């Protein structure tokens, strides 16, 4: 087995060398001095067989791609489910097989898949695995084996989730919030086996995610390269890092809730079950509290929103900065905003429960904390547009996605202020306004970021550019389509159309919106179909795309500075990079190029206006 490891004597010698860093021949060695390595170099397990290299692989980059592909697969399932739902809503009865049971099962599975198995897994598992080690200058995640187990737990979780489509009674149709008591009672589709598989799948996901999350956290905290301080990390890493912290502290509540619900179902305990009269018979439950589940769920659920949003914030900051050729405006403010939003997100959960029948006095507390979050979030938005200001903006596909993100995110953020403000929430909650709000802010906006990130980092992962022309088509159909789905949808909420309605019947204010529903459905079909442009684009350019070469976007951060593109296992060849500055030194006055990479030692930029970071 020993031949599978680096014979890393040379590397150790390198990392205990004490004086000048990677730059080497500067004029004044003192100026470029970076403290020697505290930790000896990581010795990695190099797989040789197909299975150890591509299946049970311990390379974070491969694991990232695996996460990405599996999450995308579940995302496509979620997309198809949403098509079926929109078919029913826009054109009732058009799909002959569609019963109310099916509809609610699709709603539930769509929600859970998109939030947990698609967005969370994609941002943290996909982008996190690929980018964290590269961006902080590590050879790999600190526990590669655990990382591999993490992915395969996720795989099993997805398999269990998908299996629930095929059990008697089908998947659970309880809504993605899984509110008891109806979740485990007759009258809700999938209350026999579907809900158990859902709970099991969530528990597996949490367990797997914990393994991955520990990796991300310790890699960021303990395995940065020389010179890489926390305040020199790209905001992408900050976003994913903070989101992982949230996940580690929020998923326990979900785990506990799922476990207690399974016990209620299987053993007949009454954690969440009060005395219940069903079809004239009193069930053998009593004394439990349904609200408790809601508290547990949202104690997880609200941080979960930011688990999706914070990586998006981070990634978008980097993309805007690189493609506007300008430093991110107010980097420190951005970091503190991410951390502040993350911390506050544990004190706002019950704003999802204003009309849930909880202690009514909570409304004051949660409305206040919720609107406090609006301040750092607004600051982030200002900083993004101030980054554009006086920039030198490349209008490529990546930038288009960024601009699309800003529009949709601000729109969704503003409607969030409606819903966070307790008495405004009363008429709007449980209506289509809510649906429109969260799709805009945590569906479309993060999706814009994901797409932007794909176009941005594809040259790194595959070594080739994606096709710009197809990319622009992809962007405009997605952006304009998605906006015209969700912007009018808010107004459905205003007229009072409740969410999770299989049919509208003939209520006067609902029938007035038939035309809008048809329009929204058509737009939804179009937007969904447009995503296949991306898949086509990827397949096409993998073979025939323009080769990207090293650092094609002229970015500063470490992931573009690997000796080989795409980076190999171990990332950095013989020598770990040494970092001298933050990753946002774009367009520094007096510098030769309009970017200064993080590894450029100060002695090479002595006569420029670069600020010390």
């Amino acid at each position, binding site marked *: 087995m020993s031949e599978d490891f680096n014979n890393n004597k040379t590397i150790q010698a390198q990392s205990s060398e004490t004086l000048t860093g990677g730059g080497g021949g500067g004029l004044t060695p003192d100026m470029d001095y970076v403290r020697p390595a505290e930790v000896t170099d990581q010795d990695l397990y190099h797989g040789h067989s197909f299975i150890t290299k591509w299946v049970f692989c311990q390379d974070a980059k491969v694991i990232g791609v695996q996460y990405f592909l599996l999450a995308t697969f579940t995302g496509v399932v979620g997309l198809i489910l949403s098509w079926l739902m929109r078919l029913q809503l826009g054109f009732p009865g058009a799909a002959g097989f569609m019963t109310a049971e099916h509809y609610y099962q699709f709603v539930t599975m769509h929600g859970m898949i998109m939030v947990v198995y698609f967005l969370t897994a994609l941002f943290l598992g996909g982008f996190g695995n690929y980018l964290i080690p590269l961006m902080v200058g590590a050879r790999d995640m600190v526990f590669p084996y655990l990382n591999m187990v993490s992915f395969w737990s996720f795989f099993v979780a997805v398999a269990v989730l998908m299996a629930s489509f095929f059990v008697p009674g089908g998947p659970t149709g309880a809504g993605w919030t899984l509110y008891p008591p109806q979740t485990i009672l007759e009258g809700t589709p999938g209350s026999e086996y579907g809900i158990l598989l859902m709970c099991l799948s969530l528990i597996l996901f949490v367990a797997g995610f914990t393994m991955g999350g520990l990796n991300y956290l310790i890699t960021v905290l303990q395995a940065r390269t020389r010179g890489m301080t926390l305040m020199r990390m790209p905001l992408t890493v900050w976003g994913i890092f903070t989101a992982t912290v949230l996940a580690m502290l929020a998923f326990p509540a979900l785990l506990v809730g799922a476990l207690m619900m399974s016990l209620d179902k299987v053993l007949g305990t009454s954690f969440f079950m009060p005395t*219940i009269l069903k079809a004239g018979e009193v069930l053998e439950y009593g004394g439990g509290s349904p609200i408790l589940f809601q508290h547990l769920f949202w104690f997880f659920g609200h941080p979960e929103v930011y688990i999706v949003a914070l990586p998006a914030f981070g990634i978008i900051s980097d993309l805007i900065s690189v493609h506007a050729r300008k430093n991110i405006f107010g980097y420190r403010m951005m970091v503190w905003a991410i951390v502040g939003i993350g911390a506050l997100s544990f004190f706002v959960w019950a704003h999802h429960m204003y009309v849930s029948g909880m202690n009514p006095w909570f409304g004051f507390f949660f409305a206040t904390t919720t609107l406090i979050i609006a301040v750092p979030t607004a600051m982030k938005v200002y900083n993004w547009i101030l980054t554009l200001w006086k920039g030198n*903006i490349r*209008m490529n596909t990546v930038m288009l996605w960024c601009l699309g993100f800003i529009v949709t995110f*601000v729109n969704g953020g503003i409607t969030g202020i409606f819903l966070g403000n307790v008495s405004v929430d009363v008429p709007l909650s449980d209506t289509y306004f809510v649906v429109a709000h969260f799709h805009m802010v945590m569906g479309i906006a993060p999706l814009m970021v994901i797409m932007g990130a794909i176009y941005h980092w594809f040259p790194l992962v595959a070594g080739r550019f994606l096709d710009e022309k197809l990319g622009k088509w992809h962007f405009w159909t997605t952006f304009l389509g998605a906006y015209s789905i969700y912007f009018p949808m808010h107004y459905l909420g205003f007229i009072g159309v409740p969410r999770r*309605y299989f049919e509208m019947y003939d209520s006067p204010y609902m029938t007035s919106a038939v035309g809008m529903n048809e329009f929204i459905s058509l737009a939804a079909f179009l937007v969904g179909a447009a995503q296949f442009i991306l898949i086509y684009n990827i397949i096409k350019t993998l073979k025939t795309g323009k080769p990207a070469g090293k650092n094609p976007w002229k970015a500063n951060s470490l992931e573009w500075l690997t000796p080989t593109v795409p980076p190999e296992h171990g990332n950095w060849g013989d020598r770990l990079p040494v970092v001298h500055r933050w990753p946002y030194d774009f367009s520094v006055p007096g510098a030769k190029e309009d970017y200064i990479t993080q590894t450029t030692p100060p002695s090479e930029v002595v006569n420029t206006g670069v600020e010390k970071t």
Partner: protein
Amino acid sequence: MHPGIIFFLVILGSILFHIFTPWYWTDVASNWGGMDDTITLTFWIGGGVFVAVCLFMVYCVFKFSYKEDRKADYQPEDKKLEKILTWATTIGVVALLAPGLVIWNNYVNVPKNAIEVDVMAWQWGWQYRLPGEDGKLGTTQVVNVTDDNPFGINLDDPYGKDDVMIQSDILNLENNKPVKILLRSVDVLHNWYVPQFRAKMDAVPGIVTYYWFEPNKTGEFEVLCVEYCGVGHYAMRGGVIVQDKQDYSKWLNEQETFSDLIAKQQKINTDKTKLAKK
């Protein structure tokens, strides 16, 4: 076409859509007009921020498009600008939060003269109970619910005997008289919502929740269940008829009380036993 133009058109379209939309609030029919006002205020402040931010973005896109020979500005931080923006945002947020909290304070504090209505929900329907002459509702328990006692009133509770029972999904209310809706459910979560009244609250099994409103328009309104409660959720509708005092009193007098029902049941039972004896 420059992408900025399309983004500009999107913003413009949003504003125009908002102005000319045929889909907007149903007319408010209760005292909660303040909620609409807060929404309008939020629209002005929030919408203003949305438009301002997006237009600024469009401006930047036009003005600072990539040119080979130009270099972007280099300014990592501007403490003063950031401070101004933070405070401006904070003020805006406080301006939105304050009226919201005031209205919520009204919402959770029920006026003393409000008439209590017990709304009982199940999968999938409603029924209602009004206090009798004593002005108080009797206590209830789910286990008591039978055909003879459809509301599950505790038989030993003296307040319960004169309660008025409306075994229909349509409730009549008196105009301009505050109502305290007491919600309970015998099985799963429900939510009794009339869009025109704006107010809503979940009915949670195992506890009793409440909210109040004062209808101020006569007419018929549709009640919707807006908390997902199983496959019949979308079909779980009811109705409210808001009437003037006279009509309402007339209606109320026609309704059956719990003691009426008990008497009726006893009569049937005695008839049955008589029949059996014969």
